[in-house]
């Protein structure tokens, strides 16, 4: 078995985003998705600090400190983009106008609960940012994460042990081992990395998975 690389996971997410979608890419791993969006599809990227139509990183020396994304990295603006203030930006999110958001995660539960903002460690200073708004607001919440922790434990869990970001919000999980849909009746495996059997994925995940007709090696 050869696990999906980060760029492969990002490319797999990008494949699922259709023409015309309004999409927010969370800080960290999800930002990689931008590089894989097919050039023949117009997809409008939103950043919660008040911009639609986010374009690629500017060339060295062309950065402008007034044009950044939610990760505070310099970006550019595409033709057709627009600026607005923070309340309007989060109105868009909370008001269910975004078709997709892509978020990183510590854990996702079988019920689609998401934990991605706080380890819950007693001395940790928590920081939440826009994660809770995106998790409740986007029409489709896609999660990108490694399937297993460094200790080899599944990040897909019966119940999240970390503090929740939002309950029942995740629609699809993309990991280095599989693509899994979260549905009312449980977790449906869509793709499995080549060389990994459904049974082995089931064993590693430790929560019940369903094999669907669509389940196939990617």
């Amino acid at each position, binding site marked *: 078995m050869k696990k999906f690389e980060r760029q492969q996971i990002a490319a797999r997410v990008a494949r699922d985003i259709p023409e015309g979608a309004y999409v927010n890419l969370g800080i960290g791993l999800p930002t990689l998705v931008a590089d894989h969006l097919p050039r023949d599809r117009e997809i409008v990227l939103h950043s919660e600090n008040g911009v639609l139509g986010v374009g690629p990183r500017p060339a060295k020396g062309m950065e402008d*400190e007034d044009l950044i994304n939610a990760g*505070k990295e310099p970006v550019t603006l595409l033709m057709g983009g627009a600026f607005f203030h923070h*309340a309007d930006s989060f109105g868009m999110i909370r008001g269910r106008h975004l078709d997709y958001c892509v978020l990183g995660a510590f854990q996702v539960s079988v019920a689609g609960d998401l934990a991605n903002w706080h380890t819950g460690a007693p001395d940790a*200073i928590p920081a939440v940012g826009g994660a809770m*708004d995106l998790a409740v607001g986007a029409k489709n919440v896609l999660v990108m994460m490694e399937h297993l922790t460094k200790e080899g434990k599944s990040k897909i869990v019966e119940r999240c042990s970390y503090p929740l970001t*939002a309950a029942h919000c995740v629609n699809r999980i993309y990991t280095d081992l599989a693509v899994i849909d979260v549905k009312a009746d449980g977790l449906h495996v869509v793709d499995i990395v080549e060389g990994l059997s459904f049974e082995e994925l089931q064993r590693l995940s430790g929560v019940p998975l369903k094999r669907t007709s669509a389940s196939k090696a990617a």
Partner: protein
Amino acid sequence: MIDKFIATAQAALADVPDGATVMIGGFGNAGMPAELIDALIERGARGLTVVNNNAGNGDTGLAALIAAKCVRKIICSFPRQADSWHFDRAHRAGELELELVPQGTLAERIRAAGAGIGAFYTPTAFGTELAAGKETRRIGARDYVLEFPIHADYALIKADRADRWGNLTYRMTARNFGPIMAAAAKCTVAQVRETVPLGTLDPEVVVTPGIFVKRVVRIASLRKAA
């Protein structure tokens, strides 16, 4: 004649008292009113409650205000950053209270203050520890948390251009919290890159009408690369 221009940042903040609630605009460096924060440090008011998206980073701006021991409490969404050491130290020492608010709820609570809304129900944070102890309500098929407005005595924001009535435009993502903070504070002070004669700003393009702005200071700062 209405004239909201003030010569210096120091003069614009000369009356900030101890214990004031001060909103500070900006998201990263975009829209951060750096010179107004410096003037606030110079003013030396203590026991401030600060509302900002973050809790300062590095050794300048809000971080310097914390280092100067002016701040009693911070209301923000994202305090912990790689270089938020002044906040981290003061908070761990118990000198600095933190109210952690999801970013959209922070924005909406500020907006509610400016718009005279008494409270509102948001779906954000329902079922999480940030809603612990808060009133909740099921409306239709969704669960909501009751949230209250955040009013301020002062708002310190950075805009791009202003006329003497206090009408403001912003520049790209530097707009962020500026317009909503301007409306939520009793006394809004804007630092701007440029002041222009009345009638110069297109009335379709004014983002913050002067009704929300009390004082305008021109700061001809160089724009730095991010």
